């Protein structure tokens, strides 16, 4: 096939290159300063491995928990004709614009040892959410779930209702229609939402440190470890950062071909 190449106009090309540099330069800086000789030693230290394991576990748990309640919430937002849905949507998307520290503080006031909900819970069961691994999961879910919800809501809205109409005329009740038509058809949207939400949870810092603290081996995730290392061991900070870049890129690449559709 014959193709005609069209040149991009130079003002657009220039600005686009500046935009690209904005992303490339920090990454290059990280690579340039990396202590390649200490790479394996730092990356395999107990502190880093603990943080990595904790990060992978909590971000995965937060994503799964977010999916279990977030997908139904997205379905409700997309399909309900209830009044005041705008307010519900605003509340759900608030964590997208809220500084994560504020989110963490809000969680603390609600679910902390002396929080409105956490207080009675601690008295009755002795269970305290903050400064535990569950606190990390809650903080992660709080900031990450909105990404899942808005992505899935968009996918459900974009689904042509005629498919569900067709399913109904063929005798399928609402549950069967949801299971066999709606969910499979919005699966790519759900996967996109899961990936986005996992990536956000994996990198979460502000809400986690505020709500769950920074206890090595218990609530110190990779981003927290980077923050601590910046004060004490710059080279370790770089190595951990590179580790996070590597994990994120690996996950995105693995999922991209099958699920990650940017259209």
């Amino acid at each position, binding site marked *: 096939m014959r193709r005609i190449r069209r040149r991009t106009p130079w003002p657009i090309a220039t600005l686009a290159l500046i935009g690209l540099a904005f992303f490339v330069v920090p990454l290059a800086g990280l690579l340039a300063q990396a202590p390649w000789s200490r790479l394996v030693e730092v990356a395999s230290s107990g502190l880093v491995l603990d943080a990595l394991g904790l990060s992978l576990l909590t971000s995965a748990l937060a994503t799964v928990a977010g999916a279990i309640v977030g997908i139904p919430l997205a379905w409700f937002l997309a399909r309900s004709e209830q009044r005041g849905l705008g307010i519900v949507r605003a509340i759900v998307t608030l964590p997208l614009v809220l500084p994560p520290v504020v989110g963490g503080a809000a969680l603390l006031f609600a679910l902390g040892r002396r929080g409105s909900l956490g207080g009675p819970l601690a008295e009755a069961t002795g269970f305290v959410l903050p400064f535990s691994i569950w606190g990390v999961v809650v903080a992660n879910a709080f900031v990450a779930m909105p990404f899942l919800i808005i992505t899935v809501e968009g996918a459900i809205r974009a689904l*042509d209702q*005629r*498919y569900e*109409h*067709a*399913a*109904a*005329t*063929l*005798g*399928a*009740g609402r549950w*069967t229609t949801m299971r*066999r*038509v709606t969910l*499979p*058809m919005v699966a790519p949207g759900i996967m996109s939402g899961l990936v986005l939400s996992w990536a956000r949870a994996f990198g979460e810092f502000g809400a986690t440190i505020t709500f769950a603290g920074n206890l090595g081996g218990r609530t110190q995730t990779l981003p927290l470890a980077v923050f601590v290392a910046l004060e004490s061991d710059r080279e370790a900070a770089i190595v951990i950062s590179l580790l996070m870049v590597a994990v994120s890129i690996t996950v995105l690449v693995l999922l991209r071909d099958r699920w990650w559709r940017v259209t």
Partner: protein
Amino acid sequence: MNGLVADLRVVRPGGFRLAAGLHIDRGETVALLGPNGAGKSTVVLALAGLLPVDGGVITLGDETLDRPSTGTFVPAERRRIGVVFQDYALFPHLTALDNVAFGLEAHGRSRSGARREASTWLDKVGLGEAERIRPGELSGGQAQRVALARALAFGPDLLLLDEPLAALDATTRPALRAVLAEHLEGFEGPRLLITHDPLEAFVLADRIYVIEHGAITQTGTADDIRLRPRSPYAADLGGTNLFVGTAAGGHLDVGGHRLSVADHTVSGPAIATVHPRAISLHRRPPEGSPRNAWETSVRHLEPLGERVRVQLGTPLPITAEITPASAAELGLEADVKVWISIKATEISIEAQP
């Protein structure tokens, strides 16, 4: 057992009002013919149970499906109405076989039983080899047949076809119209064909309802609509001349009368349509190039708004539409002799398998 009896009253957001009465006997094919925006889709949604009516009643067989006055409403999934949707709405993530099996499973068959039966249905519509193909890879004609098999497989009591041929290109339409006609015959319940194409309604339906602005403006056989349209709109929509004959080399033979047509590619059984306004009337034999010209006599004159419909007799009964001024000028009245001319390019023709 009764067929479908419906009196549909619906008010849509935005103020559109539908008030239409329909009845279809078992074994009867009825077309609902109307332009876009006339309310055809609203009729489909209401009958299928996807949109509750605001007033009136829908009964199918002995069962009341929707009657707001008594609070009766049977939801879509319990109505047993097979719908062929416009553009088919086949599930893109399921194979052709699973699309057809879907309704059978939803009606309680086991997965394997449903698949076996679905396979038989695909054979019936001539798509036995397409079982594992997904809708994205089916041609328009194949998709239409899968949609038909899917709508029929679970044994519905009413068949609704919403513009079943509109998604097809003009070259495949005649052949698939024939396929459709065959399968309509095989279905015993009432059949409702929604269409904006008069030809489709004339060829496939026993009876036609014309719908305009949410109301039925005329009902009758194809001939009733064609020869005696009751509104200017029906005249435009359906009041066209239609001939069935045999085509060969740029001619169409209609019961011994030969029409010249511009399309030389069609041969064998064919349908030709001529719009009444494309027919010219003259007092003397016309000069110039019309390929079709003959003398005939006026049978009937019918004023219709700003125009007059003139029905002409032997050798080829045909309807022309002219202005009242030219009717007066030609001195037209019943039994007056008149010359008729039609350009070959004004006759549309298509093969009728």
